[in-house]
């Protein structure tokens, strides 16, 4: 792409110019409900792209359907608001032919895990290079308040007046089951953490999936307040970092692995020493499988704290890298395509 000035748009930039303030907001009015957690995510994504000095024209946002899926309209980048659940498939096609672009996929718990459940797992196993932001608010917002595949059992919603009887998905366990190469969780109420995780996701080559706890203040207000409110956050959350022991409650408690079983222990004097705690290793697939399973209902006595951060990273080659290699190999073996030879085929005969 040319590095001269873009016409009428963003000035072109050369890598190494250093951060320049670029406004990634589009001219469209943001139409989420006042107080929606989506605003915070939009802001952090725009900030990250600015910080990383991305060129607007090389960024594409693709979404499905739902409140979160309006996201592309608010970005001054290329954007495609597609149909319910199918964004992963559009992303796969786009990345197959345009590995040069920075592609972001915006989805929600209904879009990704219900109607699009079959697509998200295949996106992950193929490891298409895209940053997937899964806004989880445990409710259908745009359709005005039905339970979603992540709503807890018993959830009373407009479609479950007697409480939901469906067992919910544990999204990251599902994602791990599909062999995702980058698994993380963050929350709308912790912008700094979200920005760090977004940056990690963007740096990863392959499908980076971040589950973001996002409050729907209209239909499911306070769904994650145990994890986000100052009073309860320390006891109920654990922020994992590579190479660091799993501690929470301001360092007073930790998690230790008894074989395959995680247990909560005290870490202050007389308790378990830090080196005996579970040391987070984001490259360890077995530990990651246990980590995604820390999914207790926080209302239960003795519940495990809910982990946040980067759970797992794997450098498996991307789908498009393998695809490009096959095309290159085919060209090397057979030579660039010759249409006349192709039309002619292998057996011909001539009639005078």
């Amino acid at each position, binding site marked *: 792409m040319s590095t001269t000035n873009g016409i009428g*748009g963003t000035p072109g930039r050369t890598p190494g110019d250093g951060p320049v303030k670029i406004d990634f907001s589009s001219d469209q009015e943001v139409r989420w409900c006042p107080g929606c957690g989506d605003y915070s995510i939009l802001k952090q994504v725009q900030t990250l792209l600015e910080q990383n000095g991305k060129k607007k024209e090389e960024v594409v946002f693709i979404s499905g359907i739902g409140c979160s899926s309006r996201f592309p309209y608010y970005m001054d*980048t290329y954007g495609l608001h*597609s149909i319910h659940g199918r964004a992963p498939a559009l992303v796969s096609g*786009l990345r197959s032919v345009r590995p040069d672009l920075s592609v972001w996929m915006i989805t929600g718990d209904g879009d990704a895990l219900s109607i699009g459940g079959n697509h998200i797992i295949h996106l992950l196993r193929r490891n298409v290079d895209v940053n997937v932001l899964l806004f989880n608010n445990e409710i259908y917002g745009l359709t005005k308040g039905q339970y979603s595949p992540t709503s807890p059992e018993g959830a009373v919603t407009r479609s479950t007046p007697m409480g939901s009887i469906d067992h919910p998905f544990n999204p990251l366990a599902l994602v791990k089951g599909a062999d995702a190469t980058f698994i993380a969780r963050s929350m709308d109420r912790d912008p700094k953490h979200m920005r760090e995780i977004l940056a990690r996701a963007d740096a990863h080559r392959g499908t980076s999936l971040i589950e973001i706890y996002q409050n729907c203040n209209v239909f499911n207000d306070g769904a994650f307040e145990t994890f986000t409110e100052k009073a309860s956050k320390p006891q109920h959350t654990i922020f994992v970092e590579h190479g660091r022991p799993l501690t929470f409650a301001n360092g007073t408690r930790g998690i230790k692995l008894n074989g395959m079983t995680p247990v909560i222990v005290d870490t202050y004097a007389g308790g378990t020493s830090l080196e005996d705690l579970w040391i987070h290793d984001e490259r360890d697939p077995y530990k990651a499988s246990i980590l995604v399973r820390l999914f207790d209902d926080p209302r239960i006595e003795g519940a495990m704290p809910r982990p946040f951060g980067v759970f797992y990273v794997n450098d498996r080659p991307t789908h498009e890298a393998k695809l490009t290699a096959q095309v290159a190999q085919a060209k090397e073996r057979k030579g660039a395509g010759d*249409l006349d030879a192709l039309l002619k085929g292998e057996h011909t005969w001539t*009639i005078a």
Partner: protein
Amino acid sequence: MTTTLKNKPVETRANVVILFAGDSGDGIQLTGSQFTDTNALFGNDVSTFPNFPAEIRAPQGTLAGVSGYQLHFGSVEIFTPGDQCDVLVVMNAAALKANLGKLKRGGSIIANTDGFDRKNLRLAGYAEDADPLTDGSLASFHLHCVDVTKLTRTALEGTTLGMKEKDRCKNMFVLGFINWMYSRENALTEGFLRKKFGKKPEVLDANMKALVAGYHYGDTSETFTTRFEVKPAPMPSGTYRSITGNQGTALGLLAGAQKAKLDLFYGSYPITPASDILHELSRHKNFGVITFQAEDEIAAISSAIGASYGGALGITASSGPGIALKTEAMGLAFMLEIPLVIVNVQRGGPSTGLPTRTEQADLWQAVFGRNGEAPIPVIAASTPIDCFEMAFEAVQLAVEHMTPVILLTDGYIANGSEPWRFPASRDLAEIKPPFIKEPNDGDIFLPYLRDERGVRPWALPGQPGLQHRIGGIEKQDRTGNISYDPANHEKMVRLRAEKVARIADRYKPIRLDSGPTEGELLIVGWGSTYGAIRTASLQLQQEGYSVAHVHIRHLFPFNKGLGPLLKKYRKVLIPEMNSGQLRQMLRAEFLVDAQGLNKIQGMPFTSEEIRASVLDLLSPTPKVSATTA
């Protein structure tokens, strides 16, 4: 190898229809296609009809497991695989029972006697103690009994292969024999075998031996007193190859992408009878072709839309049930106004229907089957060669008019083959994508600012200054921003419809396939009924009837000359392999009292069925709205 060839008389035939039939594991399709290629290479005109069960290995010896391959070849122009066959080659009793009705009175049966033992007769459903080979029930045919199994085994004595593997060479024995019978060389098949079994010398050797043994058997056996000869057809001079409809579709799509200078992205989910397009395209990665076997039909089309958004030519194909799943995404592509080709290789429906049989019952699905008003151009191929032409045109329309296009073919022409005087790439039209490189309204880029044809520009991601957002929500005229304005919605619905309607401006004038420019009766056909209608029309015209034939390639929007043409005949007959879908469309559009000839049996029309229907309509007291028995 030298053998004394006895002098047997050779009779010349203008054209021959031969039907090979046996168990689906007998190698019938291979035998048929090899004999086809041999004849085509010799210079005959050919048309084929492979017909096989949906099961890969249906129960052996049963009627359900019979696989057939019908070939019509001649020294004259050939348009169909033939209504009835002259020669029926059957590997077992079930194959005879299933196909005897297709054999002409006085035709020849070549029967593998080993396939007529008690067990096979019972499985085929013959009465206890009945044996058609001996009980005289086939007296009105020429019956030739050959113990193919035994003769093949004898020919392969001394090879190290097991009995089962030896028996797998039976089809080569049969092919060698048929080659002898029709004065053809084994050379093409020998070359094929060398390529196929080059790495398995024992298997290669056995197949070669069986092939030669079959040939010599014809020569030495006392049973066969006559050979036949079918001279080359007076075909236009040039270089030919053989092509199936699915190959034609694949090559047409690829040629279109090349002439548009676009990479081809093919998103597809396996389905009969469309999968061969995927197989063919996946072999051509050196053309920059990307084939993506998606997780389902929805992902197949959605990935193709994503690829088109990125600047490639997105294509998807399926058959009826898969197309149904793609419907919502077709609406998205229509709303985005992005190039996309959707191929429907139709099969018998509804639901899973008849996967390996043919039908034309997805016309309404193609033309009307979307929510909201989402008109998409629909075009149809009429022959295997036409699959190439129409696939190329589908690319042309999609790219130059920024729209999804549906191409209808069907199982009959998809698997059938004919000789193709293939074009040179320089003779194919250049295709011009409406790419845009800079803002189109001062400093501003308006993604839905249309040209005089109503076509919007194609702005690829990566270009500075052209950032824009598009989606399935109703958009404001010109800007593409979300708009719920009532007047804007009506305007946009009309603008999109008008853009598609204007595609008819580029069609060539409508042309009769045969017959007088006005008269008694016009046969209107579309799709794979072409060969049968053409054959019947030419015959009727020779017989002095005032009958013309027009074949519709553009089913939506129609050719502007179609309406006036329909008015020039006293009667209009529309043969379709459905209950009358085109008929209803033409009646609605042109207020014409068209009559239907409708066959919904999963099998193509015979030309005789068409002819009989025309004669009935032309009689003083026609039975209105004829259907076949």
